[in-house]
């Protein structure tokens, strides 16, 4: 995923004199106040920090309130999405007109119908809406799947992203990882997939269960079709 950087920063944190006896606490508090909000200086959102206060000395600012500046070395994890970056997130809501995604658990993104490529069609499966690809049967986006999408534009202040599923290398990550990135042919049979799973013992549990789910889903589909005919 794009948009995540680790930055080393030399900071000076100004601490109120009333906090002089717990300077470290005050510094951490100050940095914590930056978390999850957009900051122009860093041009992004700080997700995590790790600090080191190298010196015992701090410079006292002259003035009405003698704040003192503590020098801090910090490692900052910064999230700074830009247009045309590829982001990954979890689908939380899927309706006919849009797909709503949450990135990194806090930033929200929405992909409107016109930004979803033609290939995907909205269908109702087992009572829940999904976007299923018409060219690749197994490429399905549903609530709960992780998808990769392109940033179209964003509101930096609240990190509300407008995304797009137009480029071909976007969509459900699980499907993409099997069919696009490893360069194999997109339309593989179930047998081949199974072999794949056996070959990768590490991912076994997850993949197996995922396959199981699919099987279940398929059987259910048949049933419901029958019912529909009746």
């Amino acid at each position, binding site marked *: 995923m794009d948009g995540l950087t680790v930055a080393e920063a030399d900071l000076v944190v100004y601490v109120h004199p009333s906090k002089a*006896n717990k300077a470290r606490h005050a510094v951490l508090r100050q940095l914590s106040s930056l978390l*999850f*909000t957009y900051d122009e200086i860093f041009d992004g959102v700080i997700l995590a920090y790790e600090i080191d206060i190298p010196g015992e000395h701090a410079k006292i600012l002259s003035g009405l309130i003698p704040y003192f500046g503590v020098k801090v070395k910090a490692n900052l994890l910064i999230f700074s999405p830009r247009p045309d970056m590829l982001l990954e997130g979890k689908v*939380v*809501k899927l*309706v*006919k*007109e*849009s797909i*709503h995604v*949450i990135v990194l*658990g*806090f*930033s*929200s*993104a*929405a992909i*409107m*119908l*016109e930004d979803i490529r033609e290939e995907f069609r909205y269908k109702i499966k087992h009572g829940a809406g999904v976007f299923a690809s018409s060219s690749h049967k197994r490429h399905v986006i549903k609530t709960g799947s992780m998808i990769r999408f392109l940033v179209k*534009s*964003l*509101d930096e202040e*609240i*990190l*509300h*992203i*407008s*995304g797009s599923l137009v480029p071909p290398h976007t969509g459900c990550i699980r499907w993409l990882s099997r069919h696009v990135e490893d360069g194999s042919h997109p339309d593989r049979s179930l047998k081949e997939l199974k072999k794949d799973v056996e070959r990768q013992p590490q991912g076994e549990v997850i993949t197996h269960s995922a396959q199981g789910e699919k099987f279940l889903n398929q059987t259910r589909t048949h049933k419901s079709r029958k019912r529909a005919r009746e």
Partner: protein
Amino acid sequence: MMGVELASNDLPIFVVEDGYLSDSEAFASVIRVLDGVRTASVLVAQSDRDQYDYLLSIVDPGKRMGPDEEALLATALKALSGAVSKIDIVYHGSLISNIFGLCLWNYGLNARNALLELITSLAAVPDKFLDGCLHMLVNNFLPPRRLRESISQSRWITRKKEVHSELHMALHYIADVVPLAPMKLKSIIEKRMPRCTDPKDMIVLYVECMLGLENDEIGEFLGSTLLAKVVDLLTDLDVNITWEDILQEEHNKGIFEMELEEWEDNMGHDAEVGVKPPMENGVLKGNAFADKLDGLMVIVCEHLKSRAVNGHLLKVFEALSEIFRSAMLKLHKSKFAQFLMFYACSLDPDICGLKFAVLLTDIFVSKNEDPDSRMKAVAYLASYLARAKFISSSMVASILKRLVDWCFEYCQAQDNQGKINPQAHRVFYSGCQAAMYILCFRMRSILDVPHLKHLLFHMPLGSILCHPTLDPLKICLPSIVQEFLRQAKAARLFKTSVPYLYDNSLESEFSKAFGGIERLDMFFPFDPYLLKESDRFMRPNFEFWSMVKTTYSNCNSEDEYEFDDLDAPDFPENAGTYEEHEDLDLDHGDDLEYSLNKMSITPKSAFQHPINTNFHQPSRMPARIRPSVSPNW
């Protein structure tokens, strides 16, 4: 599927052959309309313009709607929520402002659901409508003005519950899709928060809806800020009720009147007493604030109760004690807001009750706190342990032990030189006074339990109270010292004889000095509660002085002469009050309520006399001490 019968109208939108319209058709026509005006206004064809205007007239916040129009509105809103991506902030500005202007309270369930669905879909559109949506929802915390007046009627009460829960649901959905929305919501709620000058119904309804959010997951995001805001409002109201307001109530039985059954026979009597004409303006103003505070306390207590029922009390309590520490404790002599803590503690005495006592004790003994905070904390502690019925004797004894141990250590650290300096040792004196005050209320109950009795008898109280240079008995409030000594004597608490002071004054020069100009020596935060409606939350857990079993007697009525001075202050400015107290003295023979007042000592008004550090010069007008809950005013 919504079917809508159309009145005769010849516009193509929403008109179908058989007069009914399906959702998908409505959706298609809305898209057509929206697309029609999606261009510079000069280029819009007249027919498209008309259709758009027709849509606007359906979604019209100002219109009074019949059932047909409402159904049409619901259909239009549903269709719009399918077409949110087509709505453009520039070309459809008037439509958006109409949508945001709609008031949930005016419509039935169907239209409300359609509206909220549209709002939640709009909020999820990136970078456009989130702010507007949140503003719209927060605006709907309150019903329109004309409904506010009739909100007490039962059908509106059910409507209120429905609308509030629907609003909570909508905000919940928005937070699901836009996780950072609560951040914005927080600032909007803060901005819209009613002020203490706003009407009562407005404050109560808003706060009720706002606290409802705490029950939702969204409350997790908002943290304790909601509660903090409410406490801010409470304290705002609280400081607007001055001690003068309370005193004026003496002449005009109003909001502060305590409705105790046993007092009723005294009511008639009051009328005969020549009372001053009520000071209309001042009293009414005081009443208004007290009334609002009362209503708000009810809401917040109900909220605490419901949180407790759901098993979240501890979380709320943690937040509340943080707020107490940072806001209430800093407040100069708040009168009622602190009872929120009292009520929260009463909901879970074993955990919360203990935690509060420990918090206060920690503040008192902490060297990092400023002296004023420590004195206030110990005043809270004393008043709390004395008044809270739900606190067990063993808990009182253990906290008391900590208090006494601290005082003892303090004494040990003093050299035996120099003369009494109340100001320098004020923290110590407030600690001693607190210990005595607690024992006034609790000595008997502690002595009734053998191992606690043992504990009490082994506390170094004697050596603290008879310390040669600090001599707290001379410094603390004489009324408390007197009562304490009396009980201690009856219980034979001291082995050596302790001088029994026959000083009938209510306060001493010294106590005034250690209390400072703010008179922290006379701060008893949990004196009887004076707000009428919310009183029902406090009363069951509240220990009135009349119920206290003293060590010397089970029957209070014999002892009342001892306390005459408490209630008969020499205070020329308040002749009317004085008269009434005289009257009170006359018929105290069988007065239960008189004994209620004995230990309720609350100072009169702000002490506006100049700083008088030289306490050898008799101060001309001493702070008046009055019983805070006399029903006979």
